[in-house]
């Protein structure tokens, strides 16, 4: 019996998804540095070893390349492997198995095999952690043919998208933002899927389209509420996936509003925001009432010191300013 309107924190929604899928399917395997340690993973992996044993829930030596390759290899022989990197920055040691191997596996083998692995990469930033503990590398992975990339923004979405990712026959990168971990939402108890590659209109509006994903959808939601009180009607789109991008959803909205602000939690150059902006300009130039605006991080590594950090990250105030400027 499902409890109606049950609220669950985002991190516990991940934990529940893993428990339910691993219970249902013995072929699901979780590998990751720190799956035993809340210091690494919060409560996303709690009880998993007790429930499924150390053979299927594997804490690892610090060997990102081989551990990621092992997950890819297990998936190539038919297991559903999840490889978790508690900081996305460390997954860069594993570019070969992610990009050379998994992403290309289906194509270079003429569709005769695939690597249905999930790369669970956690963004864990701020708190003066500086450049190598703060990166949000969305477009780096979204650039690669053969990969799919999900970037959920809330507890309900993460359960549905992670379920889809694990069930997907192709490799999926799950970019997980720790800033979401404590945020609660309504989450059904039973497993469900959300389609990879489809976004959602979080709130309908007429004056301007605001596109975002991952943690920044929370900031955009707050900004949208404030703007509403100022009589500005924002249509807020949450991408849910950043590869494939749901361009149709964005196009239909921009045709209606004629204005677009893209809020993207990574660097501006060659970003998801750049990709959306280019696509809108290629297809909808006649519909635009003002230039597309990209709100990104500045093209600089993340700083340590609090004064610089405060300047670096995107806030609802910066989003409101971007929307108001685009409406001028």
């Amino acid at each position, binding site marked *: 019996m499902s409890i109606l309107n049950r609220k669950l924190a985002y991190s516990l929604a991940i934990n529940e998804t893993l428990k339910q899928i691993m219970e249902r399917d013995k072929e699901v395997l979780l590998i990751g540095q720190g799956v035993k340690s809340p210091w690494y993973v919060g409560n996303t992996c709690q009880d998993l070893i007790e429930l499924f044993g150390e053979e299927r829930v594997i804490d690892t030596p610090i060997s990102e390349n*081989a*551990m990621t390759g092992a997950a890819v290899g297990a998936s190539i022989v038919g297991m559903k492997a999840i490889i978790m990197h508690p900081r996305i920055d460390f997954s860069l040691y594993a570019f070969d198995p992610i990009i050379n191997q998994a992403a290309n596996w289906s194509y*270079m083998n003429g569709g005769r095999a695939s690597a249905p692995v999930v790369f669970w990469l956690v963004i864990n930033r701020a708190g003066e952690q500086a450049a190598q503990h703060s990166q949000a590398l969305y477009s780096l992975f979204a650039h690669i043919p053969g990969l799919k990339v999900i970037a959920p923004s809330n507890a309900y979405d993460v359960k549905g998208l992670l379920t889809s990712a694990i069930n997907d026959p192709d490799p999926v990168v799950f970019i997980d933002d720790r800033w979401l971990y404590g945020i609660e939402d309504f989450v059904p108890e039973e497993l469900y899927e959300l389609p990879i590659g489809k976004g959602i209109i979080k709130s309908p509006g007429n004056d301007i389209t605001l596109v975002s994903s991952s943690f920044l959808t929370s900031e955009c939601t707050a900004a949208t509420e404030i703007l509403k009180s100022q009589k500005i009607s924002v249509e807020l789109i949450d991408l849910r996936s950043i590869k494939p991008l749901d361009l149709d959803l964005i196009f239909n909205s921009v045709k209606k509003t004629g204005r677009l602000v893209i809020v993207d939690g990574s660097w501006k150059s060659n970003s998801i925001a750049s990709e959306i902006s280019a696509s809108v300009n290629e297809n909808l130039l006649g519909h635009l009432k003002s230039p597309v605006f990209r709100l990104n991080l500045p093209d600089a590594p993340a700083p340590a010191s609090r004064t610089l950090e405060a300047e670096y990250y995107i806030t609802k105030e910066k989003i409101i300013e971007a929307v108001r400027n685009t409406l001028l």
Partner: protein
Amino acid sequence: MKYSKEILISLYRTMLRIRTAEESLVEPILNGEIRTPVHLYSGEEAIAAGLCANLNHSDYIFGNHRSHGHYLAKGGDMGAMIAEIYGKEGGCSRGRGGSMHLIDPENGVMGIVPIVAGTISLALGAALASKIRKDKKVVVSFFGDGATGEGVLYESLNFAALKKLPIIFACENNLYSTHLPISEIRVNEKIYETAKPFGIESYRVDGNNVLDVLDSSKNAIDKCRNNQGPVFIEFLTYRFRGHVGPDDNIQGSHVDIRPKDEIEKWLKKDPIQHLKEIMIKNHVLSDLDFSNLHHEINKEVKDATHYALNSNYPNPSDLLKYVYTK
């Protein structure tokens, strides 16, 4: 003679099939019919033949850029391999992979790629799957001496030892890392010793003696199947051809960069000739039997080439097919 007639003929046949298929590619490479980079396995046949002879059909192998021999020895279809090398839709990877991306999952050829050491960790994962599933499958990771420069090998050795995985690290040491002789890439030329600090049983075998390969790999495979893996075996061998293509072809010169006397020394250690001499000495096959066997294999290669040449090239409209499964 401790070896049965059947096993000797089978090893000879496997090696000769590989050699004949490989050498059939030389002319089409030189005249431009074959364009994909081809790394010929000629000279190293004893390793694939001897090791795969002990594997079950359901066991897995992973290979590298020089893996035609592994593919054939594990049971991969020859016509599909040659068609792949010609870039045809009828190839094992439907013309999307070429010589360096052969696959035949139904026969346990799970992945072959040219990123040096790229499949070592994939084989590690397949061995992990075998351990979790308790299905007793053994996994062989074939890589060369050049791959010992890659960090992922050492990460994989550590993890395989830690979890006692059923994996054989099969290092084919042909003494050259593309153009560089082994003395220029490492201090200790005994590659097998690098596995010892990880607590892995490791040893060196004459990779041109198929019976030594057979015996040593049987021991290793039995250990892996009985949860006593992993095992690291260094097979000492030599490639008869260039790193890529029939010769090293530096600036169109069609010469080999290796010392002439070194090449001649190794040509005398031809693994196929070596086994043939043993078989003649032990009256396993007559001259006529050998002649018939060669004739049969020549025909098989001819038929496989015929299949490849008659297969279509992929349709340009299918360019984007297979990027994703769905």
